Each structure stands twice: as C-alpha cells, then as structure tokens.
C-alpha cells in the first residue's frame, strides 16, 4: 500500500504520473474535439477534470478507455508510450471507467456483473460460481458495500448499482479509475459514502480521474485539477492553490474567434407565457414569458431539465400541472401536431435521431410538416413542394446539387439547415432551437446565428437552448438559467457575465470566495 503524500511541487516533482496524455488531438468531421491536450494522473490522488459542456471531457474518457483513437499525441503509461486500440487494451492496462449511466446487466447477478469476462474458472474451463461469489463478496466488503452477491442487479437501487460498478472496476485490478459524474444520481447520504470510497481507493494507490460539475465536491475530494475549454488544455495544478473563482474563470474564458451578429432589441408583445409548469420527474415550478422578436436563451448544465421542458412545451411529454398561454389564450398541447398547429415548432438537439430523415430527399424533409399546404385531398403537388423547399433553402443559404438529393449525403451543418428550414416553412410563431449549433463547423455556426438574428428581427420568438456560453452571451436578449429541473434565475442581457452564468447553473453562492 502506498502512502498518500500530497506533493508540494505543482508539476509532479515528487511522484511520477501513472498515466498521462501528451499533446493529444482528436478530430471529428467538422469539429476538433481535442486539440493538443495534456492530462496527468498520479497514484493515490484524485484529479478533477473541469470544463464546460463540450470542453472535451467525455472525448478524453473515451480515449483513455480505448473507445476512440487519438489523431495526434500519445498516451504514456508509467512513462512508456502505449496505444489503446480497443477497450480490452485499456482494461488490461488497468484503466477502468465508471460512467454516468452505469453499463451493467440488469438480469445478471451482482457477482456475475462484477466478473463478466474474467470470471474464475474451474479445471474444466467452466465458470467457478462458488469462487466467483466468494471473491465478489470479498471485494464488496472491501468497499463497505453490504449486499448479497447472488442477488439480481435489477433488484438493486441506483446507488448500489454504482457500488457494483466500482467493485467491478476493482476486480480487474485497475490502477486508474475514471469516475464520470458519479454523484449525478445519488442522494446526499450516498454521496458521503462515495467520498469514503474514494478515500479508500486513494489509500490503495489508485489514480482517480474525477469528472464533475459540482464545485463543492471537487474541492471536497480532489487533490489536483485540470481545466479544459473548447477542447483545449487551459491549466492544471493542485486544488489547494486555486479558488472556485479561479476555476470558473479558467473554464469560461472568452472565445475570441466567434463573432455574433449585431442585434436590435425589439421589445415586442408577449406571445408565450408558461405558468406553474410541473412534471412528475423532470422539472418543477416553471414560469417564464416570451415576446415577439426576442431570443430567450436557456442555459444550464447537461441534465438541468431544459430539453425535457421543451419537449413538454412541444407536446411530446405531458406536464402534470401548469398552463401555457399563447397570445394570452390558454392552450393545451397534447401532441407535436397540435404544437405545430399552434405555431410552436421544435428543432431537437439530437439531429440524427429526432430531426433528419436521412433516407428522404431534401425537399421531402422540408415539406413533411407542411404537407397540408402542399397537397390537395391527400395528393401531393410536387411543384408546390419544390417551390416551398427552394424558397427556404435559399433563405438559409443551403448549397446542394439538387433538392432531390438524399439528406444523408449532406454534411452535418447542411443537415441542420434543412431541419431548420423544415420548421420555418410551417410559418411558426415560436421556434425552439435545442443546441442549434452543437457539432457543426464554425462557418455553419455563424450562418445559423445570423439566421436566428434575422428571424427575431422579423418578429419570430426564439427559444435557444444552449450549453455554449459564448453563444448564450452573444445571442440572447434574456437568459433563463435552469438547475436540477428548476429555473434559478432569469437574467437580462445587460448584466450577464460568463461567471454569473456558471455560478447560477452550478449553484455556487455569490461572493463565496471573493
């Protein structure tokens, strides 16, 4: 067992890192997810990886666990360059990850979950069930989890499932444990137990990468921090050397390369008012208004309930309580079709899954929600359809060889334009854009921003759900900040700073450390 010796020198003078990323770059079509980043994990220490949504944290996790291959740079294990070509490689090098949504098997027993893939064998090569259960019980006891290893996983609560995941991580003799938002689904008491467990792992000399949005827990259990922003390494060091404010500043910075369109605020009349909106599990007590010509930003951490709220407004899910007023009339929206009829449209976040029908040509994607207008007695009028599609694609500056090409052949940015064009063609009053520029290239981003400004100028009310601070700051007239399913603040553009946004969304008290 290794002693926990908090090093005094910031850059690993005393101990050498077990695992390090050196100049790692990862490129996806249209986006540079990681650019020349560094990360060092020390034995017996917890390193917190901090960054906004989209900073590249989950990409790093996937590179460390062998799911993605870096396009540049190297991974060093005990100072030696290694490559994790598969998840198996990473696991045998001692890297293990406990994910936000734990990847376990509900219908297998606890012991089987812990030893799946590396179960102890009998001489005949069969699984030695008795040894497996005994070993599983021992590991579970070592982390203070008192449960029967023969019980089915389905019958456990979420906290106990986490413990099983951790036990599984320990069973493969992991040296590096990655915890990706491990406390997201836990109660207060369970979080305390998790902290104790992290201490135990530290005492065993494991290097822990701890990913969290919650500052209190970062300062509670981390020894070191590393900050990423927009896929770039910003800084690292000992947690005792920084304050919350320092970290927030490093996280948000200022993106200098993005220019947002100049906008005149219109101050139009109210079009939408949401009063006392409640959902049994996703959000509660939602009140806000939206005006013509306004861009209303919705900011929050992933899982703050923003998309869930929008889906309820669009009639995909039903709220348990609350009223929507459109143009001061109470409206009940029970299905997406009714929402469209009321002039509310929703451009979903997950374009591939929820927005684009890639097997249909561009023009058919665009006219799909407007077929009532482009058809007569159930018969399509193709000329009408092409006219509508041409009209809206040219407004969005979409370049495609032909409107008859299948949507799947276009780039992500162009697909996004088609999805937006499809909704604009319904002539809506309110358009909800959920992460409108996520995963598209800079050029297309600028075009989408410009177009949003144009829509607002024409009197359309825009709700923009975004996790990108520059986008929220650059585009919104007002910003609704949500945390854990509730609205914590509605901020006017004039007194917005990146720091306030992050503090509100993360629930940091004002002036706590200034």
């Amino acid at each position, binding site marked *: 067992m290794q002693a926990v010796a908090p090093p005094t020198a910031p850059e690993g003078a005393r101990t050498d890192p077990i695992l390090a990323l050196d100049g790692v770059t990862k490129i996806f*079509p249209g986006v540079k997810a990681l650019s020349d980043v560094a990360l060092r994990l020390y034995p017996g220490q917890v390193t917190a990886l901090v960054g906004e949504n989209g900073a590249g944290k989950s990409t790093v996790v996937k590179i460390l666990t062998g799911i993605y291959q870096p396009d540049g740079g190297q991974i060093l294990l005990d100072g030696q360059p290694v490559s994790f070509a598969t998840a198996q490689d990473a696991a045998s090098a001692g890297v293990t990850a406990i994910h936000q949504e734990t990847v376990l098997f509900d219908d297998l027993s606890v012991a089987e979950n812990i030893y799946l893939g590396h179960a102890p064998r009998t001489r005949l090569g069969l699984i030695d069930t008795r040894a497996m259960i005994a070993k599983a019980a021992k590991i579970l006891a070592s982390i203070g989890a008192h449960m029967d290893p023969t019980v089915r996983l389905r019958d456990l609560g979420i906290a106990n499932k986490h413990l099983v995941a951790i036990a599984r991580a320990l069973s493969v003799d992991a040296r590096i444990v990655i915890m990706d938002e491990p406390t997201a689904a836990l109660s207060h008491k369970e979080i305390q137990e998790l902290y104790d467990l992290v201490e135990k792992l530290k005492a065993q000399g494991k290097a822990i990468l701890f990913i969290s949005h919650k500052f209190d827990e970062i300062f509670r259990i981390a020894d070191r921090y590393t900050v990423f922003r927009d896929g770039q390494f910003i800084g690292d060091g000992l947690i005792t050397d920084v304050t919350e404010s320092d970290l927030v500043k490093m996280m948000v910075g200022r993106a200098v390369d993005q220019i947002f369109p100049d906008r005149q605020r219109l101050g139009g009349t109210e079009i939408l008012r949401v009063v006392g909106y409640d959902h049994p599990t996703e959000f509660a007590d939602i009140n806000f208004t939206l005006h013509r010509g306004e861009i209303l930003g919705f900011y929050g951490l992933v899982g703050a309930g923003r998309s869930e709220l929008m889906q309820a407004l669009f009639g995909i899910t039903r709220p348990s309580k609350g009223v929507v007023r459109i143009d001061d009339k109470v409206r009940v929206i029970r299905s997406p079709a009714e929402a469209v009829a009321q002039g509310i449209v929703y451009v*979903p976040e997950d374009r591939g899954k929820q927005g684009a*029908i890639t097997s249909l040509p561009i023009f058919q994607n665009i006219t799909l929600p407007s077929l009532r207008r482009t058809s007569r007695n159930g018969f399509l009028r*193709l000329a009408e359809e092409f006219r509508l599609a041409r009209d809206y694609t040219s407004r969005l500056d979409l370049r495609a060889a032909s409107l008859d090409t299948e949507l799947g052949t276009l780039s992500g940015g162009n697909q996004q334009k088609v999805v937006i064009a499809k909704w604009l063609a319904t002539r809506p009053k309110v358009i909800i854009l959920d992460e409108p520029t996520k995963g598209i290239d800079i050029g297309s981003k600028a075009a989408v921003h410009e177009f949003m400004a144009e829509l607002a100028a024409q009197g359309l009310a825009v709700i923009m759900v975004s996790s990108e601070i520059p986008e929220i700051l650059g585009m919104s007239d007002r910003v609704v900040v949500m945390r854990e399913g509730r609205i914590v603040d509605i901020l006017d553009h004039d007194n917005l700073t990146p720091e306030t946004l992050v503090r509100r969304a993360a629930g940091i008290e004002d002036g706590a450390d200034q």
Partner: protein
Amino acid sequence: MIRRAIASREMILLGAIVLLLGVIYTRFPGFVAPNNLIRVFNDTSPLILLAIGQMIVILTRCIDLSVAANLALTGMVVAMLNAAMPDLPIIAIVILAMGLGALLGMVNGVLVWKLQIPPIVVTLGTMTIFRGLIFVLSEGRWVNSHQMSAAFKAFPRSTVLGLPMLSWFAILAVILFTVIMSRTTLGRAVYAVGGNPHAATYTGLDVGRTQFWAFTISGALAGLTGYLWVSRYAVAYVDIAGGFELDVVAACVIGGISIAGGVGTVAGALLGALFLGVIKNALPVVNVSPFWQMAISGAAIIIAVAFNARANRTRGRIILKRAEHAT
C-alpha cells in the same frame, strides 16, 4: 446519386431476371414464349399483390406474417358464402373479401398501434388465430369446386385484352400503389415513419396510426388475394397458402425493400416477386430437383440482402469523404 443507385438496383434485378430467362431459353426455349410468360405472370400475381402490401408494412419498420393466414381465412369465408348464396354478385364478393381482409389487417394494426406489441409477435399470433378460425368456421371441411358457382370460379380466369383478370388485379395494384406511394401524403408518411420514427413524431406524424394504415392495406390486399386464390384453384381448406408469407417477405427482400424500414419501391416489390415467380415456374421445366429450387430461392434472398447491405455501406463512405473535405 443514391436515388440513381436505387434505380440501378432495380435495373440490376431486372437484368438478373432477363439473364435468368436467357439461361432457361438455352435449356427450354418454350419457356420464354409470350404465352408462357403471360402464364408465369398470372401465376405470380397473388405474390405480387401480397408483396405490395407487405412492402408498405415493411417500410414502416413492421412486418406482417399473417398475410397468408388472412388470405386463407378470407378465401374460406367467401367460398362458404358463395356455397350458401350462389347468386351473390362477384363484385359484392370482391368488396367483401377486401373489407374482411382489411378488418383482419386492422386487428394487427390496432395491436401494434395501441398496445405497442412488436409487430412480429402480433402477426405471429394472429397468423395462428386466423388459421384456427378457418378450422372453427369450416369444421375442418373443404369447400370443393362443385359447391362453388360457375361465375365465382370463372372470374379470375376471364380474360380482358388477352390477360386473365387475376393478372389485371396485379397490374392495377402496381399502378395504384405506385401513385399512392409517390404522390400522396399517406405514402410520404409511410416513408418518413420508416426512415426515422423519432423525427417523424417530432414532425407531427403519428407513427402508430401510419403503421395501422399499412397493416390495413396489407390486409385488404390479402383479402382480395384470398378470393382470387380460392376461386382460381376452386378449392378452400384450412391449409391453403401455408407458409406463403415467407415467399412474400422474400419477394420484398429480393426487391430491395430494406427490412430496417424507409427504403423500397413498388417496382422493387414487383420485380422481387417476378424473380421468385420465374424461378418457381422455370426450374421444374428444366428438370431441377425441388431441393435445388428451394436452395436457389434461398440463395437469391441472401445475395439480395448482402447486396443491399453493401449498397448501404457505400453510402456511409460517401458521407465520410464529404465530411473530410469540409474540415
């Protein structure tokens, strides 16, 4: 570009059919005589009718295994009706058969739509139920030729412009559904729902309702085929068209209709059915053993699926190439 690839996929299938006919010609020239080709087409017409219905169901990401049982049940009902009321006009029988078939299809549709039971389970269940119902209705007895009225038996054989009525029904269905699938809002909804059900929901389309109509159409076509089948062979019993649903699905798969939904055309279903029809009719005359007939049909299915899978993979590569240029 993809559109052209699909078109060319149908052209390739057409080429394969022509090639097949060419090979058969070298062994048995009489097979490709116009009269015989008309006979083959007529013989394949029930398969064509059912394949079109099945295609629509598959496009919506479902499957209808109950078509053959639906055909048999409807066939039995109209045959018994004819035996009891020989004076019922044929037009009434045709409408009745389609109506009853549609009703049976609606049962599938409602179970899939409202109870969200997987289509393969629903139609496997109704397939057995329909067959059971035939037994209950007929008490296991056959309705034989002498119990049927002359008009009832003559209708599918009566020729118009040199083609039997049965063939005309297939031709009419091909034309009608080509128009429906490419020119109506229902057809568009079918493609959208199968192409991406999530996106279709967000667009305001009712996925379940669209699937319900697909099952209804498939059922109506099965019912119509039920009458045509029973009257053509002049017999109705529990086991007619047993296992025929597999031929129907095979015709769709060979015709390039994606089992994953959203991709496929009426022309594809037609050609897929014809391909199977030519094989089934030609192999016996060129003295290929029944075992080889089944093996060849099976091989054709696997080749077709492999071909479709490869076509989809090239599509992936195209996207990547473009994306690389973009960065």
